[in-house]
């Protein structure tokens, strides 16, 4: 329960931090930290325009997408506190729920019959399929290292496996950071600032959404950041700490995560679309590196 509350709390300021980082780095004053939240709240109170071609799938999809991300948050542990739901193999459910959400988002984009949204959907489907192996090799490696198969147990056992494992954690943090960049279509895979001609994945899929649905989709994006951020944070939070240290550290790591994304988006450039696939394959290779590292640590190699 605690983890869910903290993730929800993080999701409120996460996008604001990214925006603020970007504005400070480009010499602007920038909006307040809570501005994105006000934007979602405004969207939730707005009416909507629906295309004549759409079917009920279009109205259902944002809700499924949002629920999938929310439910994924249920599965994430928080330090010594289990997630709301925790069982063996919960990370498989985690990944497949997110995939189910994406399945409906892609259908939603195809439902409008727009060539732009079809293109976005096609790319979203392809990039997210390429990123999937990276996630599973990563978690599989840690399962091998710790001998456990639920997120909570993996994290719990992880902190007993010595200082070398923190080197792994840094690599894992790197992989997760880039996985979420692909999942949320951020730099270096896609640039959410531009519209249409240059933004070719996520933003182009939701061109026809408006009002409450758009608010749900936008908020789900932020929530996804917070969920992955807490997956990273868990690597660095020792279970023996008391709660009054835990919670500030958690927020600090999330803050750092947001600032890093802000920096990447300020100084980085978007890859050419055709190079994205190669880039995502490198993620899988880094995960494999972790796997071989684990084999070395266990003395199997």
């Amino acid at each position, binding site marked *: 329960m605690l983890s869910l509350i903290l993730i929800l709390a993080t999701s409120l300021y996460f996008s604001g931090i990214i925006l603020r980082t970007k504005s400070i780095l480009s010499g602007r004053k920038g909006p307040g930290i809570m501005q994105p939240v006000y934007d979602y709240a405004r969207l939730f109170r707005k009416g909507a325009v629906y295309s004549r071609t759409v079917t009920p799938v279009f109205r259902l999809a944002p*809700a499924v997408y949002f629920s999938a991300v929310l439910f994924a948050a249920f599965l994430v542990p928080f330090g010594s506190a289990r997630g709301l739901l925790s069982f063996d*193999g919960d990370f498989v459910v985690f990944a*497949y729920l997110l995939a189910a959400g994406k399945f409906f988002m892609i*259908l939603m984009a195809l439902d409008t019959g727009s060539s732009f949204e079809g293109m976005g959907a096609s790319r979203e489907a392809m990039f997210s399929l390429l990123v999937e192996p990276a996630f599973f090799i990563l978690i599989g490696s840690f399962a091998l290292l710790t001998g456990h198969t639920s997120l909570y147990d993996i994290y719990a056992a992880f902190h007993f496996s010595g200082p070398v494992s923190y080197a792994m954690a840094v690599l894992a943090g790197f992989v997760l950071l880039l996985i979420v960049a692909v999942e949320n279509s951020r730099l270096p895979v896609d640039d959410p600032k531009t519209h249409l001609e240059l933004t070719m994945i996520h933003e182009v899929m939701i061109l026809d959404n408006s009002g409450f649905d758009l608010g749900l989709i936008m908020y789900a994006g932020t929530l996804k950041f917070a969920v992955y951020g807490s997956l990273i944070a868990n690597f660095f939070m020792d279970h023996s700490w008391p709660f009054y240290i835990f919670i500030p550290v958690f927020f600090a790591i999330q803050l750092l995560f947001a600032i890093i994304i802000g920096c990447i988006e300020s100084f980085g450039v978007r890859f050419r679309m055709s190079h994205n696939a190669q880039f995502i394959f490198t993620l899988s290779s880094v995960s494999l590196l972790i796997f071989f590292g684990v084999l070395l640590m266990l003395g199997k190699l």
Partner: protein
Amino acid sequence: MNFPVVFIVTAFLVLLAVPFIPDKWKGYAALAASLWIAVISSAMSVTALAGGEVEFTLVTSYIWGNIPFVIDPLSAWFILVVNLIVVPGVWYSPGYLRGYGQSANLSLHYVMLVWMHLSMIMVCMVQSGLAFLFVWEIMSLSSFLLVIFDNQQRSVLKAGLNYLVQMHISVICLTVAFFIVYRSEDGFEFSRIGEYFAGHNNIPLFLLFFAGFGFKAGIVPFHTWLPHAHPAAPSHVSGIMSGVIVKMGIYGIFRMTTLLQSDMLPIGNMVMVAGMVTGIYGILHASVQKDVKRLLAYCTVENVGLIVMGIGLGLVGQHAGNAFLTLAGYGSALFHVLNHALAKALLFFGAGAVYRTVHTRNLDRMGGLAKIMPRSAGLFLAGSLAIAGLPPLNGFLSEFVLFFGFIKGVMLADTTESIIIILGVTAIALIGGLSVLAFTKTFGAMFLGTPRTPLPADCGEPAAGMRRPQYVLAAVMLLAALVPFVSFGVVSGVVSGTFDIAWNLLPDVSGFTGLLQKVSFVMVMFTAVVLAVVALRNMATRRLPEREGDTWGCGSRQPCARMQYTGSSFTKPVGKLFGSLLPVRKNYRRVSREDVFPRQARYAYAYDDWVEARLIRPAARLVNRLSAISLRIQDGRLQWYIMYGLLFILAIILLTWLKIM
């Protein structure tokens, strides 16, 4: 009562009766026969699963000997799956075939449907090589006749012959394998195969069986008949073939696995790698297809890959004496046999309904059908979710078991095993992602957007008789997903009853089923969360203004249906990325500069099957060239043939006289 005799009598009764029934009622007669068979065989299977002995002996002539019919838990599971798919399939057929075919053709079709059903059940029961080959052959021949229902079309006949030829290469492998056992152990009973395995190297004979059954199951590189036969056959036949006939190959592999005595580790590794290759190859080809039934056929190849990976994991687990891995591997394979059969039959029936409405199988010509046939769209969506292995439907559960087994397998002591299994994890993840791509494409191109070509005037929902079997399948799917306590409980019973391993080392066999029940509960909770969010959304937006408008065309004033993304454009990036595995066949004519009066330019392209293009067609060309040599002595003149006969007799006499042979 001797049930094999009852079955044989039923088969011949159907053969005699159906031709004399009016065309309108033929389908229902077949349905009645099929139900009758299903009820008897299911009852026997349930008895067998409950622990009862179900054994019959058919006393026949000298050649066949006494044929043992046994239903053990393994056969019982497959028989139940067969019945679950074939009965809805036969139910679906009259609606689908309405308006097609002549009377004689229909009679043959319905008789063969029943025969195919019977032969599949017999395949699961017969425990003796020679009789097994016999019923196996009946199954192949009846399904061949079912595939070529539309035999006026050249392409259908060609696909049917392709199937027939490949099935007989499979039979050659199986026959050779059974005779190897016969020569060494002097008997055709399956127990003799176990005796053979006990005294010889297990790998060669198992591989021979694996190849033979692999043809039926569609394991790469033996899969090339599927993408031809499935589009050619009527949809209910495709559904049954993809759902269960292919699974008979899996049954065969399973049966041989139970008989193995040693070398389980190398065999398990080979099987696992074969599964990975099959899975990735199948889903890659599926995602780029234009023809919806061809796409579904390749998707079957993919799912067979997943099942075979499960068998491989089970073998590795058995070798390691690890009860958990054995259960996860074999269990996921058996469970996926059910889940894939249900979802695939549902999808083929749905594709058939769409075909009867729009008269095309080309995804690039469909679109917007959800508005015309909303119920079929809903059913197809359920099937797509299940087959893509996504929560909250049953496909996810078996994929979960497989995934979980593989993650546990990574922890095996052996490094080589760890590496092979982590590759398996990668393969499952990639397959999962690609099936999301393939099925968003399929559903999107068929049902969403606007029609890409004008629809026929009289289109709408298909006849209720075609929809009802789909509801039944969807309901069973939902049940399998909601109560894995029952569905996977039965599977784990089958595994622990079939494979001899120290199950008592596993602290709690039912604990695994309990975990699955938990996962199922989580999926129900997820559905509840979705419903809650939808309710919240509806409440929040009730008072808000809502408008209808055109899809935003980004400034273009006249959006038209042909500007939409098609299925082909949707998967083009994947086609490019994996281009080395997905050869493209282009057929185009440019307008050249020399054309004084340019003719129309055209451009067509299709993805080719790598195995077919690089292995099968060159091999077929070689055979053709070799047979061209023997053609020289065949010139059609009777005189020559008489002389060949004479020469032959002379040669025999000479050889005997000279005592050479």
